[in-house]
Every structure is written in structure tokens, then in C-alpha cells.
């Protein structure tokens, strides 16, 4: 079997689906890596929920401006044509349906598109919802990037989420280290599968039933990422 995709390779794959002119919000963690991998020459506008409209690359070492951070508290730059608004304005943009795509991390996704990505119910730890729920409810398309399985090997693509939901029925596509899976009215439909991984093997790692696209492709990403 081919090696499962690395985090950067998952991010690369997700970035290939970002289109010219789209307004995109990248969640903290793996999703934010995607900003490095949009195809060259394709102009994507990255919004960050702390107010940045047009996030540019991370600041180079020694050039960080502590007054300019993104929602992941990274020291960033502004893209050409970018500007900064306030948090209430940024969430008005999110809630108002002005974000074409949000790429979010996930704990669990159900076959009906339910997303659980905010409360892992860790014992003795407090809650942290941040902007995840607003993005999951507000963006026009919610796409999830995550490992196909938990660290202990359990499934994350479920019949029904076990953790508290972030938003119901919101996810349209999932990028994992093993596959690209669409959420449709008929449940999960695999669009791309890792080379050398059989359908049975993928299903064994997935709780909910998988269907396959008539146009099933091999999941590929550049090596060395």
C-alpha cells in the first residue's frame, strides 16, 4: 500500500479544490497549511475570523508584527488587496454567507454531514468553541480535513456522531490521509482512494457505509510535502 498522506499532503489536496476568486476561511491546525498549496496563479482570498480579509503568507523570521495575527495567532502578513475589519464584522461576513468555502479540522463526520469538531469531552478540561460553530453554520461549503482514523484506530466517518455537534448536515466533502469523500443525499461517496488501498480495506476503517463515484480516482499528492 502507498503511504497514507501526510498532513501537508492532505492540505495540498484540499487546496487543489479552491477556485479563483473564492473567499476561504481556513481553520486552525491542518487546514491553515492549505494556504501554501493553492495552484500557482490562482487568486484565493483567505479570511480570518479575527478580522483579516486577505491573509498573506506568514511573516518571515525577524519581521513578525505582533499587532497582526490571524485566528490561529500566527504572525501573518496581508495579501495584496487585503484589509482588516473587526471581529463582529468578520463574523457578520461568515454568518451572512460570504465565505465560499471553509476548511475545518474534524473529530467526527456523520454520513448525513453532521460535524463534531469542537468538544472532544476531555476529562477535567474546559470547553473551547471559538469560531468553529459560526463557520460550520455560516459558510456556503464546509469541507473537513482530518485523519481517517483516531490515534487508536477508531473510525471518524460515522453513521452518527457521538460527540456534541458543531453543526448539523453541514459537511460537503472530507479530505483524509486515505481518501476524498463527498457527503451526498445518499451518504458518503468516495471520489478518490489511496493507491493500493482496497475498497474493503477503506470500508473496514470507516463506520458508515461507503459508496463509490462512477469516476473514482486515485488519491495523489506530491511527495516530499
Amino acid at each position, binding site marked *: 500500500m502507498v503511504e497514507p498522506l501526510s498532513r501537508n499532503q492532505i492540505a495540498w489536496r484540499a487546496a487543489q479544490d479552491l477556485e479563483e476568486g473564492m473567499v476561504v476561511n481556513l481553520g486552525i491546525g491542518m487546514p491553515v497549511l492549505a494556504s501554501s498549496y493553492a495552484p500557482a496563479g490562482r487568486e484565493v482570498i483567505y479570511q480570518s475570523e479575527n478580522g483579516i480579509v486577505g491573509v498573506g503568507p506568514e511573516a518571515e523570521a525577524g519581521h513578525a508584527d505582533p499587532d497582526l495575527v490571524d485566528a490561529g495567532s500566527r504572525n501573518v502578513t496581508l495579501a495584496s488587496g487585503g484589509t482588516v475589519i473587526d471581529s463582529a464584522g468578520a463574523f457578520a461576513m461568515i454568518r451572512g454567507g460570504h465565505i465560499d468555502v471553509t476548511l475545518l479540522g474534524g473529530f467526527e463526520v456523520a454520513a448525513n454531514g453532521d460535524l463534531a469538531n469542537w468538544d472532544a469531552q476531555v476529562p477535567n478540561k474546559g470547553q473551547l468553541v471559538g469560531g468553529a460553530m459560526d463557520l460550520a*453554520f455560516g459558510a456556503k461549503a464546509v469541507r473537513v480535513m482530518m485523519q481517517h482514523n483516531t490515534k487508536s484506530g477508531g473510525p471518524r466517518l460515522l453513521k452518527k456522531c457521538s460527540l456534541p455537534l458543531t453543526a448539523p448536515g453541514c459537511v460537503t466533502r472530507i479530505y483524509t490521509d486515505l481518501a476524498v469523500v463527498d457527503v451526498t443525499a445518499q451518504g458518503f461517496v468516495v471520489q478518490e482512494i489511496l493507491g493500493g488501498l482496497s475498497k474493503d480495506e477503506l470500508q473496514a476503517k470507516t463506520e458508515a457505509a461507503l459508496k463509490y463515484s462512477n469516476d473514482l480516482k486515485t488519491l495523489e499528492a506530491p511527495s516530499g510535502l
Partner: protein
Amino acid sequence: MIDKRVDSIEAALIDVRDGASVMISGFGGAGTPANLMRGLDACGAKDLTVIVNSLRFLEGQAPGLFAEKRVKKAVCTAARGRGKTPSDYELQWQAGELDIDMCPQGTFAERIRAGGAGIPAFFTPTAAGVELGEGKELREFDGRPCVLETALRADFAIMRGAEADRFGNVRFRGSQANFGMAMAPAADIAIVEVQAFSETPLAPEDIDLPGVYVQRIVLAPDTGEIRG
């Protein structure tokens, strides 16, 4: 002549008394009023209600608020400590000593914006139909379920800006504005610590937060280390 300057952090916070409610801006260190947060710690007021995005950032600058159990209620979007060992606020939350109103961040920002804009309540889809929205009034608009959320106001709001003038006009730089733009109008007394004070009025196009919304300006060139 209007002049909203006060001489010190202590003077800026002189009337923060037991039972006060305080909004605190800042995101990832930008716009974080580190000096005023330290002053809030030092002032000794207790039974406080804090309205702040992240309790971790509040504890970072004002650890005494939690170590001395001076916060009775927090409205926030993040109440998780950094390490595996529970923080003071996590322990107090579990013990029922600290009431936490956990809000989606957009709802948090909009509730504050509503408080300053004279809107007592609004409907929003966010959190409708999920556990976090349970107990809230539900209503459908155009077939979409929404929850009713109420405005937030406070006695005080504290934030940090780049520059201010005697009218209380504030210029933010970078991503400093974040929650402060909504918090200042939502508080009876908005206090802004600034890196620089302009002896001449700010130019119209440089003003992000009009002085109408600001009651006190305090000069604090350095933030010191911001712990989050």
C-alpha cells in the same frame, strides 16, 4: 476642553469595584490590553463578571483573578487551559464556583455589538439544533431554525490601540480592533490603553473607534510580555 486622558493604569481603573462587569478585548495578543489586565488583577475587585474571548489570555496577564477566585461569571468562547493539568478556572468551573456562558465566537461578538447598538436580542442560526444551543428559544425563518440571543453590556470595557487623541478617538493597527470595536459602545466606561498619544486630533480617515465611544485613554507604550 475635552480631554479623556488619565494619568495611570490605576487611575483608569479607579472605580472598578466588587461586582463589576468588564469586557476585555484582544485576540492572539493583538489589541490585548495587557497593562489594563494587570491593573485589573492588582485592583483587587472581586465577584467580577468578565466578558472575554479566551480565559487563557485573561489568566496569562491577570492570574490573581482566578487564583483568588475573584471571577464569578465568564462569558467567553474559550475556557480551556493550556496543559493537561486543569487550570484554576477549569477547576472552579468543575466545582460550580465559576459560571461559564460558552458562546460561539460570532455570537459572542454579535451579542456585544447588539449591546452597544441598542438591540436587546436577535435571532441567529448558529447553534440552533445542537447541544450548545439547547435551552435557547428556537424559531424558524425561511425554514431555517434559529436561536434567540440577547445583548451583552458591561460596566467597563478595556482594550489596546495604537494611537489616540484627546477626544478619545482611537486608531488601531494590524488586527488590534478585533472585539474592541464592539466592546467600547457596549460598556458604560470604555478604557483604551494606547502605544502613543497624539497631541493633535487624529485625521478623520485614521479614526477607527470614534471618541464618542471612549471614556478614558491611558498611555502605555509597552505591552510587556503577553502570555496566552
